[in-house]
């Protein structure tokens, strides 16, 4: 709080900051940088800035505020061209960032990272706090430029090749990731475009997904993507996207494509949580995630005649699911009843009560608990796989029948209304990915539900869910393709006999075209 600042602190801060900016912008100082920095720190000491943690905090807050005030003054000055404005702003912010980077690098004792990381977290927290206050204050007149420049340049400075900074890489990335999480678009919508730039910066992605050993950066990055999907979700539920939403959505697609190309294993491992957050109508965006497969895997051509999917070695391997999805099966007594039913197929009332657990409101568009639906489907499926494998069988469309697990799936298919059924079938289709035990089981499950459906509406909706994921532009998940091909090729399913296949010329043409490519 400004009012609590000791008298004279603002003037001292302004003086020191101006001094430093001037020193920084003299280009011939590189060789004497350590000497210059040491001398500047002594000056800060002399002014009492480094005496206590409280004073250091106030200094940084004041200095940040001075920089941000300058940003608004320069941007609102009509005599500056956009290029001149940016150059002036960057002179100040880059200098301030460089000072912070040097302080982080050199603070504390050698070999002890705590002081350095504490200082970094302090500064990031201060800038984050000022940004959020600024957004509140300025509303739609909020300017992202200064903050964007601050974060990107500080990140680049702390990512420069230096033995000390390299040893702190995980802590530095964690600090930035947490800060970006606290700045996510739901909390700072005026910063959303700059935020997406920050989290998709080529060096940020490289560090967090590739350079940090043992994939320790992956959970941090998955949180940021979840923040992005959750922010976009309400705006993507509408058919027509406003231009600002279109831009952010397109930017998100680009980032996902880079991830699909360079880090498909990341998308594979975290797909479940992502599918929870992505609205059901964002079919292409979801397909990008579901189409990912490990780079060392060779996918058999889904159009291979007589492809024996159950003979593939990968069918025996369970994919990694980096999500605590079982936790979403709430409340605890529901989970208990579910486990009881899976074990003993009792009590039978469990099935009739299932729908009431899944339906949470009467509000159109949010009547069902989608995370619970997704978790329930995956949990029941994985339990089914374990159960079948415990008897030394490989799941197929015959042996998955007549089980507690299939009871639940069939009950959901029959008992839910069209919206609930659509969401249920989506939950199954979300597991149709690259060759693995889940893809295989859920492919068999959906085909079994089609074959055993007691109403054409169920078959129609299964077809709808699969087809809408196929008619969208590429990419398409492998498991989706093999399931659909099986459905239309295998005479058991009598697919072509159904009225809904021929309900309109466009639909007939679509199926014929898909069938031609499959045959």
């Amino acid at each position, binding site marked *: 709080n400004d009012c609590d600042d000791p008298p004279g602190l603002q003037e001292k801060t302004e003086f020191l900051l101006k001094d430093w900016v001037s020193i920084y912008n003299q*280009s*011939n*100082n*590189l*060789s004497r940088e350590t000497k210059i920095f040491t001398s500047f720190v002594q000056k800060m000491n002399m002014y009492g800035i480094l005496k206590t943690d409280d004073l250091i905090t106030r200094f940084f807050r004041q200095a940040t505020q001075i920089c941000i005030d300058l940003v608004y003054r320069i941007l609102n000055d009509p005599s500056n061209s956009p290029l001149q404005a940016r150059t002036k702003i960057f002179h100040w912010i880059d200098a301030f960032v460089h000072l912070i980077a040097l302080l982080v690098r050199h603070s504390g004792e050698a070999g002890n990272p705590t002081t350095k990381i504490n200082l970094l977290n302090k500064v990031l927290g201060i800038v984050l706090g000022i940004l959020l206050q600024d957004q509140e204050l300025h509303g739609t007149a909020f300017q992202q430029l200064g903050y964007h420049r601050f974060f990107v340049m500080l990140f*680049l400075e702390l990512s*420069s*090749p230096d033995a000390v900074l390299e040893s702190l890489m995980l802590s530095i990335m964690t600090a930035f990731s947490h800060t970006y999480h606290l700045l996510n678009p739901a909390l700072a919508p005026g910063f959303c*475009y700059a935020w997406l*730039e920050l989290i*998709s*910066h*080529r060096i940020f*992605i*490289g560090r967090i*997904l590739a350079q940090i050993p043992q994939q320790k950066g992956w959970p941090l990055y998955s949180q940021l993507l979840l923040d992005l999907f959750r922010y976009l979700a309400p705006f*993507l539920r509408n*058919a*027509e*996207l406003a231009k600002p939403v*279109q*831009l952010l959505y*397109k*930017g*998100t*697609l*680009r*980032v996902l*494509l*880079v991830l699909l*190309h*360079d880090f498909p294993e990341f998308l594979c491992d975290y797909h479940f949580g992502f599918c929870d957050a992505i609205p059901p*109508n*964002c*079919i*292409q*965006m979801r*397909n*990008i995630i579901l189409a990912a497969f490990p780079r060392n895997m060779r996918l058999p051509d889904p159009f291979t005649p007589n492809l024996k999917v159950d003979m593939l070695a990968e069918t025996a391997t369970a994919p990694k699911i980096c999500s605590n999805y079982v936790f979403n099966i709430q409340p605890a007594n529901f989970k208990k009843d579910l486990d009881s039913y899976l074990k003993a197929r009792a009590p039978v009332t469990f099935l009739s009560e299932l729908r009431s657990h899944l339906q949470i409101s009467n509000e159109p568009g949010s009547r069902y608990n989608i995370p619970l639906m997704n978790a329930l489907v995956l949990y029941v499926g994985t339990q089914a796989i374990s159960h079948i494998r415990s008897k030394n069988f490989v799941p197929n469309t015959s042996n998955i029948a007549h089980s507690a697990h299939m009871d639940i799936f069939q009950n959901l298919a029959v008992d839910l209304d*069209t*919206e609930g*059924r*659509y969401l249920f079938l989506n939950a199954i289709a979300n597991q149709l990915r690259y060759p693995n035990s889940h893809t295989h089981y859920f492919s068999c499950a959906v085909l079994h539900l089609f074959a055993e459906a007691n109403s054409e*509406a169920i078959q*129609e*909706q299964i*077809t*709808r869910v699969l087809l*809408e994921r196929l*008619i*969208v*532009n*590429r*990419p398409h998940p492998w498991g989706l393709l093999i399931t659909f091909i099986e459905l239309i090729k295998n005479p058991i399913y009598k697919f072509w006999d159904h*009225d*809904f296949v021929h*309900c*309109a010329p*466009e*639909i007939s043409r679509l199926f014929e075209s898909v069938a031609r490519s499959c045959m």
Partner: protein
Amino acid sequence: MVNNQFGMVGLLTFIRAAESDPNLVTLALGNDLTGLGLNLNSQESLHPTFAGPFADHPCRVQDVECNVPTEYLINYAIKDKLSAPILNKLQEDLLFFLFYTNIGDIWQMMAAAELYGRDWRFHIEEKIWITRIPGNNQGKFYYFDAQSWKRMSKDFQIDAEKLDKCPNISALVNMN
């Protein structure tokens, strides 16, 4: 059939809307992702040259910062020790390089003087360097295009008053 948005009729609505108003079905039918400016068939990783979510092309080589050892950053140590380039030995493209990259510096003026000595003239209004095409008296001239960094030819109607005079280097040197 299912008579709401969750069946085949719902899907048909998207398909029909795509013909009349593609904007309504962006999410349902998707976009051609190859048009987003990423080389999805690349054998190399994409992220090292990813120019950002709002760029429609990757970074060019010159956009990607390379951290060089500090020992390489020697400008401050040697800049006053380098001997001056001998302009009359330099090829034209290097003279243009000096002219366009030494803004506000005496080297810009010296490069301009050397170009003048080689029959190039700076057009004050067009802000380009032009010269006659040897053997051509019909209004066609060479000009130097700094954007494409090429010498191009074009028809010009030249008003001699619009051509800059030769810079007075000795005056500048004395002033300095």
